[in-house]
């Protein structure tokens, strides 16, 4: 436990003592903010139009749902931004240690590979949590000016967080494979994109295969979270996906020593 915390703290300090954490968080907030603004203004315009129509036809004002029309698409967009931002957070975790030789310190200290993998994974997970919490400011604005439903937002955020952890766990894995950070990041993005887009293919192949493929799609499982539906089957999928990435990292580090690193 102490080793795990030591490694996690070191990684966190290294994120925050370099520009990485600030740049990634700042730009993530910026791009999410732009989309939040667009979606929110769009929603406001729709409300105004609906209001005018209602007055014109002398009908009751229809209830427009801010959760479904602004927050859900925003969370979907954020899941895509995270896909491009998180591999940049995870790419250095092992690649950098390999390049600078500090991996020799790590692997000759009484620290198990599980401790170091979980430590690094947690550090990236905490940075991602901070990124998501800060976007909560936008939600606060919605609460000030509207009446969104809290439960649905929280479920959506939970889904977004789990999805991000999937990116991070495979980000860790790809960074154990190479000492080149760019290669680690690009491989992670490509790999995740494949598991993202696999659902789109499902419509083109025969239904039995399509059904299986869509179960493997990362974003398909996110859909229910976005709607505010919490289903354990999605939770199980994400947790399995995360475990798989961490397990592969473990195997990769263990096997590297036989190959000669």
């Amino acid at each position: 436990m102490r080793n795990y915390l030591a490694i996690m703290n070191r990684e966190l300090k290294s994120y925050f003592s370099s520009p990485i954490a600030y740049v990634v968080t700042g730009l993530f907030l910026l791009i999410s903010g732009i989309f939040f603004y667009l979606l929110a203004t769009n929603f406001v315009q729709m409300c105004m139009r609906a209001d005018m129509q209602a007055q014109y036809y002398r009908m009751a004002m229809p209830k427009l749902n801010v959760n479904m029309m602004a927050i859900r698409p925003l969370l979907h967009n954020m899941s895509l931004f995270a896909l491009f931002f998180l591999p940049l957070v995870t790419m250095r975790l092992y690649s950098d240690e390999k390049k600078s030789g500090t991996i020799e310190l790590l692997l000759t200290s009484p620290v198990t590979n599980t401790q170091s993998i979980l430590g690094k994974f947690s550090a990236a997970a905490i940075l991602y949590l901070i990124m998501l919490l800060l976007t909560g400011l936008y939600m606060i604005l919605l609460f000030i000016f509207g009446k969104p439903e809290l439960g649905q937002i929280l479920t959506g955020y939970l889904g977004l967080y789990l999805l991000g952890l999937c990116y991070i766990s495979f980000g860790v894995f790809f960074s154990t494979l190479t000492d080149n950070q760019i290669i680690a990041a690009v491989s992670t993005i490509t790999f995740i994109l494949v598991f993202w887009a696999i659902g789109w293919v499902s419509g083109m192949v025969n239904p039995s295969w399509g059904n299986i493929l869509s179960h493997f799609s990362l974003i398909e499982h996110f859909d229910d979270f976005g709607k505010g539906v919490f289903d354990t089957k999605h939770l199980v999928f994400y947790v399995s996906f995360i475990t798989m990435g961490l397990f592969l990292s473990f195997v990769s580090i263990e096997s590297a020593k036989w190959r000669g690193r």
Partner: protein
Amino acid sequence: MIDVQQVTRFFGRVMAVDNVSFQVEKGEILGFLGPNAAGKTTTMRILTTYLPATSGTAKVAGFDVHDQSMEVRKRIGYLPENPPLYPEMRVLDYLDFVAKIKGVSPSDRKKAVADAMAKTGISNEGKRIIKQLSKGFKQRVGLAQALVHNPDVLILDEPTVGLDPKQIIEVRELIKSLAGNHTIILSTHILPEVSMTCERVVIIDKGKVVAEDTPDNLTRKLSGSQRVHAVIAGPLADIQNALSNLPGVTKVQHLGHTEAKQAQQFLIESKAEKAISPDLAKSVIGQGWDLYELKSESLSLEDVFLRVTTTEEEVDRQ
């Protein structure tokens, strides 16, 4: 303290370490000498549990490096060829982190870090960021990192590489001062370093141990002959003749004459048990020639090194 038995390591089809065995006693400094790419680093990496051996066993402090690697890791301090430093960290934070992952208890950590810094002479650099340190200081931080948990065994891979002459002397003194409390393995391809710091030398070449002894014994055993350098004035042919006829002399080499052209320089090699200098002096004086200089040369470790590694090549060719 360290017991290496028939360790072999392949990288693919390339054999990096070939059936290496050696022992190191507690408190000893062992020099690990060899040309670049001889297998020194691989052997050290096997000892530090960084790489597994393809076959053979190695034990550190009684623990097997493969089966009980965590126990071994607690007892070793390792300085790889490039010191494993996180450039963005401060020296104090870095050493504190290393102490943590090496298992130093929280109550002892502050003192352990301070001690390691004092030993390596970086007590005033604690607040500095590692990136901004000079090469010499980085090397010291690397050494402090290896020492921080007061390990039984220190494994240092070319600890003086890239340092200036003053720093090299300081690091050597430091290493010497650590012997006794720590068992040290030190690799290098710089020969004087071994004769200056180590009590015992293992010479390794192309993955094989080619010689193992104290630096003095190695020189004596492997030379097998004595060499005398003499400067004599007189007729060249007669002198050569006289020198060749001395008992035990195997080779007389004329090196040329002195600057003033009044005397000739010779290098005489002999297999004789007893020193040949007295006989040589008597003979020269008896002939009425002038003896300007008479100096016996011992084989330097450098010669030994070349000799072992070149004979090795000849064996390979057969």
